[in-house]
């Protein structure tokens, strides 16, 4: 009896399984986008501006009829639940053919975890904040795209800017978060300094655990070393805590500090003048290019009106990633004669594309890696804003700091010569 029931159920299930709809070529009623970011925990300080920007952009898309006439439905996934939950959610979302594209993810750990799954499930996945150079290093990605720069140009840019601004630097200390981004950032920065100014000494390397609230001991340790330069790519609430704890203890006056993600906290934590900061790409809403773009200015004002503060570069990265997705749909439909594209066609359209963003352009190379410019500067007082802004800026061309697609990045950095710095634009040249 039971056996019979089991068999019937099996047959029923098999029948159902064969009914999975064929690839849709009709325009669907809505387009689902899985958007992965941190919406809780210490990393939310960085992740929420991304989500806010996505909310704003998608509302804007939908007000204008959506993407190619199809309204966009974002589904947010909180990365704070850990790799396991993130992967489960990714699989669940990918299981629904309506969710054609994933915008994932913020943390490099999640990017690296999702990338093979994206390839296996053949879902176009746009790394909106996946900067780790390990992501696309094998050059075989078909479905994973990164419309940003990667960690290589981002951290070489700081080395070059530092050497331009402070050519006599002798000792450097590093305090980075204890995971790939922190270690990669440190390795690239060290390699670049070693190639460009071989006599520089690294006097301390601290890697506090991500999410540590307290940096007092680390600050004491840095203070006892008296380094010329303190470099950090801490971010999110960690960065806020570090700055708040380090400022009264004089770290910013005794050393030249570089905060690679400093722009994200300008509006929240008072930073002294002269701190080297940047935006890991070209995504500063007040850059000359951004100011010249009416769309960007409107985005910034809408953002301020809705969320109470101006966008920070994670917001711009998210907005640019969505613009990139939208452009891919347009290109794909042009190519296939106006039919609603499949996932494969969308991925195809992303390959090799050049897309104008809010703050510049992003060109997707053959290895799916993006080329974007790098903006670096120092904090200065603003005449019209109640918080410091970036001054004395330089904008390095995206391809000038990138190795070729098949080159080992660290090996490429070691081939750089001190003269390389002279070939690049100088601080203050970007006005």
């Amino acid at each position, binding site marked *: 009896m039971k056996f019979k029931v089991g068999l019937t159920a099996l047959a029923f299930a098999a029948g159902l399984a064969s009914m999975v709809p064929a690839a849709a070529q009709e325009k669907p009623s809505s387009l689902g986008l899985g958007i992965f970011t941190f*919406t*809780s*925990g*210490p990393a*939310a*300080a960085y992740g*929420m501006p991304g989500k806010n920007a996505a909310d704003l952009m998608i509302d804007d898309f939908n007000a204008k009829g959506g993407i190619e006439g199809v309204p966009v439905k974002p589904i947010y996934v909180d990365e*704070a639940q850990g790799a396991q939950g993130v992967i489960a959610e990714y699989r669940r979302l990918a299981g629904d053919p309506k969710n054609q594209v994933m915008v994932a993810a913020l943390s490099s750990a999640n990017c690296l975890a999702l990338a093979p799954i994206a390839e296996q499930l053949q879902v176009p996945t746009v790394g909106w904040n996946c900067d780790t150079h390990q992501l696309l290093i094998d050059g075989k990605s078909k479905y994973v795209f990164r419309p940003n720069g990667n960690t290589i140009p981002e951290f070489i840019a700081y080395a070059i800017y530092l050497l331009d601004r402070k050519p006599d630097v002798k000792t450097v200390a590093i305090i980075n978060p*204890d995971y790939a981004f922190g270690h990669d950032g440190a390795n690239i920065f060290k390699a670049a300094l070693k190639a460009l100014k071989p006599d520089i000494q690294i006097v*301390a*390397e*601290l*890697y*506090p*655990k991500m*999410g540590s*609230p*307290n940096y*007092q*001991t*680390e600050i*004491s*340790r840095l*203070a*006892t070393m008296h380094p010329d330069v303190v470099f950090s790519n801490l971010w999110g*609430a960690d960065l*806020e*805590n570090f700055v*708040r*704890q380090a400022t*009264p*203890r*004089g770290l910013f006056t005794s050393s030249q500090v570089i905060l690679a993600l400093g722009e994200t906290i300008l509006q929240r934590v008072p930073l002294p003048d002269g701190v080297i900061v940047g935006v890991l790409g070209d995504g500063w809403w007040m850059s000359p290019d951004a100011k010249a773009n009416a769309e960007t200015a409107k985005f910034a004002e809408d953002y301020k009106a809705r969320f109470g503060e101006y966008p920070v570069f994670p917001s711009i990265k998210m907005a640019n990633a969505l613009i990139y997705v939208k452009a891919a749909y347009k290109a794909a439909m042009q190519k296939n004669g106006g039919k609603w594209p499949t996932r494969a066609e969308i991925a195809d359209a992303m390959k090799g594309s050049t897309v104008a963003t809010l703050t510049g352009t992003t060109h997707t190379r053959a290895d799916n890696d993006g080329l974007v410019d790098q903006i670096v500067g120092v904090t200065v007082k603003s005449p019209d804003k109640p918080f410091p802004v970036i001054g004395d800026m330089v904008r390095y061309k995206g391809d000038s700091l990138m190795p070729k697609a098949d080159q080992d990045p660290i090996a490429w950095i070691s081939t750089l010569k001190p003269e390389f710095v002279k070939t690049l634009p100088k601080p203050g040249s970007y006005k």
Partner: protein
Amino acid sequence: MSNTVIPLLLDSLASAALIFFAAVGLTLVFSVLRVLNVAHGSLYSIGAYVAASICLFIASRQLSPYLSFVALLFSAVFVAAILGPLIERTLIRWTYGKSEAVQILITFGLFLMLEDLQRMVFGVQSLYEDAPVRLLGTSQIGGVVYLNYQIFLIGMAVLVVIGLRMLIRHTRLGRLITAVVADREMAQSIGIDTNRIFILAFSLGVFLAALGGALAMPTSGVAPGLGADTMVLAFAVAAIGGLGQIEGAAVAALIVGLARVLAIYFVPSLDAVAPYAAMLVVLLIRPYGLFGAVTARRI
């Protein structure tokens, strides 16, 4: 080398003070109630959240920043007065006389609930208000600038150790608590209202947890996940000192603080391992902690 000795010691003390505040309430509650409260870390972070909220309110209304010192103390009292009796009456009391497994699980359930309730009440963003730190200013010691607030914390920790000692040795309540700790049934039979002692002791534990969180907030802020991190640290310290030993917790906090600071100074890659490695070493040599004792079973 010698120029790092003073900062090293001072950092160890400052670190130990924070660690001590995380653990002292846990060990006090265990000594009186014989319950290991896995939700202790959440009470710590709730203390921090309440303190942050009140301090932010004070700052937003531009009231005197000195009020924020009062706010730190008040938030601990507030949390203890509400959550202490509530949790003891509804959950902890039910576990008396039950196995440790049940006690751990019930309080683990409470931990899970409190983690989400915090997110609902205080949101998921990190909160921070450092008025107390700014008010106290800085001092240069051994060539390094320190926050006077860090030294204030060391003082507060010493004060709590002395205060608890005075409370237990020299007050009526302390004597009642001592009687209950020594022999619960005996205490009951001579007419001590043990239920009242349990509520008071548990609430005192909550107060110490919340005070720890409140005092840490001005330097470290508070964000989701603080409770879970604090919990294991508190476990480690309480276990090293011997569960239920308050002076033990103080000594253990010094050991863990020193271990962490030494790691950050000399082997930075091991800083997060240090507290647990210290715990493991101590427990393998003295399984009941530095100051703990065992009782044998009669047959």
